[in-house]
């Protein structure tokens, strides 16, 4: 933020280009407001209007985003926000993730008696937060976006108000999340104190221009910012909130969190990481130290995620740990990101692939869950392939994709990610990673064991799959396989996104 000495007209007017690139944000924001107003209509009709508005908003957002091909990075609001291919790419991901979550939640909310329009409104606002998060170039914007997203999600996590576990999850998430935000903010403050700016890029400029300005306070600031992100992406040892929250949250919310939230956190992390110059531009020593920290974090995260997931019997919680494990793989991308050609592109690709398969998996779980999110223990899945072969097949595809078995998106992404790590010379890390993923195969396959190799227990309950959810699951299966078989396009998009940043 520049000191405001004179009123500069260009700050108050916006060029056509700027308005164009801001369209997705306007659409979502407008949609959210309309939906909020629309929720007044709930007396009229309990669920449809807001649902339709939300879905329309999200798809309109997707449509606008896809149609938007910025010629180059556009900086907005005096350098506080960027609209470039990177943010555009991630916006699409968030919007799609939200759209699918909404589609899947529809019948779930009915069943749980939670059909409140606020649900959709909150999702819209959190999506807006995510979108801003992925485009923030200033710490304050980043903070606001983060809080916009988080606050909405805190509520979503506790959405099953009468449920003790939901409450607990929301409370834990809220307290730890707020504390972490505060730490991040404190770090920002320290950086501001050292550099006189809250612009992310400004920090690194200073560190490069005046190495003498790099004081322990500055370093502490950086550390606190990084800490904030490590918390948000749930890297070990800052992962502990995640399993509890994922377990307690309503299933579709968990699905939304593992994809949208995680993708947003990583998107911002990528941007901050690169703009802070932690990867490039900083001195050798800095790079080495961050490398070491990420290395340790990555290994810890992979090990804890995978090994603890081995012992889980609740599917939701198992996927929570698996989500931690995937964070670990992504951190491998951070460790090596800039030293190899693909680096962050591979990471970006992985985020997307992960989002696809996780959305799908949680969509299936949503369909399978019984009243009050019960029925998600492993043995509840016994003989699913008999009861509902298509759902079982879909879930298998998602799980195998998470396990990284070809020909799925998970494999292609993992291949790209680890391949870039090998290029960066991180062979030992990759070996640890693949061994961990071998461990992971065990618990993913265990689900298949229950679905395919055990006989159904009890009387087969009829599963009603709404058309919305059906479409969502089918779309994810197709995407998982498509990205797995022909990853080239996705790789190119991811590459373009990262280069455009």
């Amino acid at each position: 933020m520049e000191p405001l000495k004179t009123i500069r007209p260009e700050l108050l007017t916006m060029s056509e280009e700027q308005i164009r690139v801001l369209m997705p944000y306007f659409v979502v924001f407008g949609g959210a407001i309309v939906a909020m107003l629309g929720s007044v209509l709930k007396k009229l009709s309990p669920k449809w209007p807001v649902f339709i508005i939300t879905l329309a908003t999200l798809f309109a957002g997707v449509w606008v985003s896809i149609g938007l091909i910025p010629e180059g990075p556009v900086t907005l609001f005096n350098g506080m926000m960027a609209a470039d291919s990177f943010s555009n790419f991630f916006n699409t991901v968030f919007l799609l993730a939200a759209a699918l979550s909404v589609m899947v939640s529809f019948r779930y909310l009915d069943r749980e008696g939670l059909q409140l329009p606020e649900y959709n409104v909150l999702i819209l606002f959190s999506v807006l937060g995510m979108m801003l998060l992925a485009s923030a170039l200033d710490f304050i914007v980043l903070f606001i976006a983060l809080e916009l997203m988080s606050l909405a999600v805190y509520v979503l996590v506790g959405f099953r108000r009468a449920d003790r576990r939901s409450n607990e999850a929301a409370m834990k998430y809220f307290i730890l999340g707020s504390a972490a935000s505060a730490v991040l903010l404190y770090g920002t403050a320290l950086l501001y104190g050292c550099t006189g700016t809250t612009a992310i890029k400004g920090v690194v400029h200073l560190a490069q221009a005046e190495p003498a300005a790099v004081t322990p306070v500055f370093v502490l600031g950086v550390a606190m910012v990084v800490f904030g992100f490590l918390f948000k992406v749930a890297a070990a040892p800052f992962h502990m909130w995640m399993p509890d929250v994922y377990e307690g949250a309503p299933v579709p919310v968990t699905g939304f969190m593992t994809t949208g939230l995680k993708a947003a956190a990583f998107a911002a992390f990528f941007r901050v990481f690169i703009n802070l110059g932690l990867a490039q531009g900083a001195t050798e020593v800095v790079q080495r130290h961050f490398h070491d920290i990420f290395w340790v974090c990555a290994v810890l995260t992979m090990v804890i995620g995978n090994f603890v997931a081995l012992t889980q019997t609740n599917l939701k919680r198992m996927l929570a740990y698996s989500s931690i494990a995937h964070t670990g793989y992504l951190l491998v991308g951070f460790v090596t990101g800039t030293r190899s050609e693909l680096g962050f592109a591979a990471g970006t690709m992985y985020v997307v692939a992960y989002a696809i398969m996780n959305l799908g998996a949680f969509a299936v779980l949503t369909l399978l869950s019984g009243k009050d999110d019960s029925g998600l223990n492993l043995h509840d899945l016994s003989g699913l392939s008999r009861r509902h072969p298509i759902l079982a097949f879909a879930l298998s595809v998602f799980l195998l994709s998470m396990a990284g078995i070809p020909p799925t998106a998970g494999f292609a992404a993992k291949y790209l990610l680890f391949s870039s790590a090998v290029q960066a010379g991180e062979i030992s890390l990759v070996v640890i990673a693949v061994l961990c993923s071998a461990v992971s195969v065990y618990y993913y396959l265990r689900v298949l064991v229950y679905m395919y190799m055990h006989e159904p227990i009890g009387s087969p309950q009829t599963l009603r799959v709404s058309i919305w959810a059906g479409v969502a699951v089918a779309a994810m299966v197709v995407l998982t396989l498509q990205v797995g078989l022909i990853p080239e396009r996705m790789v190119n998009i991811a590459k373009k996104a990262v280069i455009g940043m």
Partner: protein
Amino acid sequence: MLFWIPLFPLIGFLINGIWYAFGQAPAGRKKAGAGLPGAIATGAIFASFVVSLMIFIQLLGQDPEHRAVEQILFNWMSVGKFHVDVAFRIDALNTLFTLVITGVGTLIHLYSIGYMGHDETPGKFFAYLNLFCFAMLMLVMGSSLPVLFLGWEGVGLCSYLLIGYWYTDIEKAKAGKKAFVVNRIGDFGFLLGMFLIYSTFGTLDFESLRHLFGHAGSLPEGVSPQVITAISLFLFVGCMGKSAQIPLYVWLPDAMAGPTPVSALIHAATMVTSGIYLVSRLNFFYTGSPTAMSVVAAVGAFTAFFAATIAITQRDIKKVLAYSTVSQLGYMFLGCGVGAFSAGVFHVITHAFFKALLFLGAGSVIHGMHEEQDIWKMGGLKSKMPRTYWTFAVGTAAICGVPLLSGFFSKDEILWKAFSSPSGSPWLWFLAAITAVMTAFYMTRLFSLTFLGAPRFEVAEHAGHSHDHPGHDHGHDHGHGHGHGAKKVKGIAVHESPLLMTLPLMILAVLSIVGGYVGWPHASWIEHWLEPVVGGGHEAASGVSESLEWILMGVSVLGALIGILTSFRVYRNLSLVEAMTRNVQWLHKILENKWYIDEIYEAVFVRPIQVFSQLLWKGFDVAVIDRIVVGFGRVSQWTGETVRVIQTGSLQVYALMLLAGLIGTAGFLIYGWH
């Protein structure tokens, strides 16, 4: 034309085999009698005999130095420079073998039609028999080691199948397996020999190998004598297996579990002599290695002696003959081992005649006695089975070495060569001569216990019991064959066998008498005939005069006579035998139990390997490797369980972890930044 020789039996096998497999074996199909399958099989082998004879005549007319007929059928394997054709080559040596195999084979086939008349599955039997002839002919006709090996293993297979022919008796099946496995041990040596030959000479073809050697035991250039010795010994291991020499002879006595014609054909006349064939065929290797020669001779002589000791005490008529076969095979190897290959081959031929005769005679006795094989339960069959009696007598005399019978000539030739040849020694001669005495003794024992004296079994009335239509099933199925006769008719109604069985006996008897004249000392046709292939007999070592030869011959004749006469005297009075037996009970027991060799093998090789295998499986595969594998899983699980505990559920513990992580990160960075 050559290929017709093995092809006829193969065709016979295919006809009988397919007919059996699809027409007789399936449940509910009509069982065929022995007649038609037997006729097909006999016809096939006879046709091949005719062709063999034609080949022989053709060879007779050829120049001795190039006396051979060759035919390449097709290329079997061709990999890089390694090239094996399925090709036949008949020269002076193997023409004799083809004649014996097809000739004696025809007789035995003929005999089998009668013998197997009441068997349940004669189709199968004749198929196997023809298959055997096919394999045996491949063995002797093959022009290279791999083709020979094809036949070599093929005969082993047939031997296995035929020994275990009555497989419902598990002991017989086991005997078959034992034969196969022990033979495989031999084949192991054979294979190594082949590998060594190929890696040394680059070929496995007999002719090419022979050309590499040149003449008179000279070694090819650049090949060390040790390699030749190794090759010879490896191959000899194969021979030990196939030709039942110490230490691999153990399968042959057990092989008597098969039908008697099988014992006659495979385990006396043909298959077991293939070791001698191999050694003679590759004589240039052996002559190139004195060490190997002495090993062959020593093993041969010792086997001859050793088997004879066991034969003295056996009670089973076929077992006695089996040990006598082992012993005679020892003679043949002794002959080869002292360089008298032609003597060895000569003995193969005469032995084929008289041993086939003896076995078939024994078969006839067993047939007539309704499956009784214990000679102590026989006696006095002379009058009841006159044709069998007379032919058996001729066979016994031949094997004992009664002068002017076939066995005499061949055995004497070997004895003389064992003494006189450069690689021979008086010790070998002495051992062989002792064996000759023992042979005479136990064969006469067998003869007199079976045919002479009073019957030691209950004789049943002959009334209404004609052989051709027996009132009960005595279809040679040992599983339940025993004592059938006794159940229905009290005692045993002994009968002479039908002409179909005795005719071969008579023919073989004639051959046993006259077969030896082709090897008349000092005018031996056979030695001359074989000379181009196996080389001339070595000239007697200096200092051995012709008179000595006569003296030695006299000694051996005398020995045979002593053996025969003692045996007659002893076994005329059976109480005397029992008294004598009691005097040397320990020795008798050892001999009767065959020196406990089977038990020793069982304890030293079979059991330990089984126990060790079990240990490997349970103790290593499951307990170590698998435990490690499962251990990885366990450790993972354990790690998970342990790490999981940190996740206490307490909000504030989480917050503490955050703080710790933050302090750690910041500390590391601040410390490291400067």
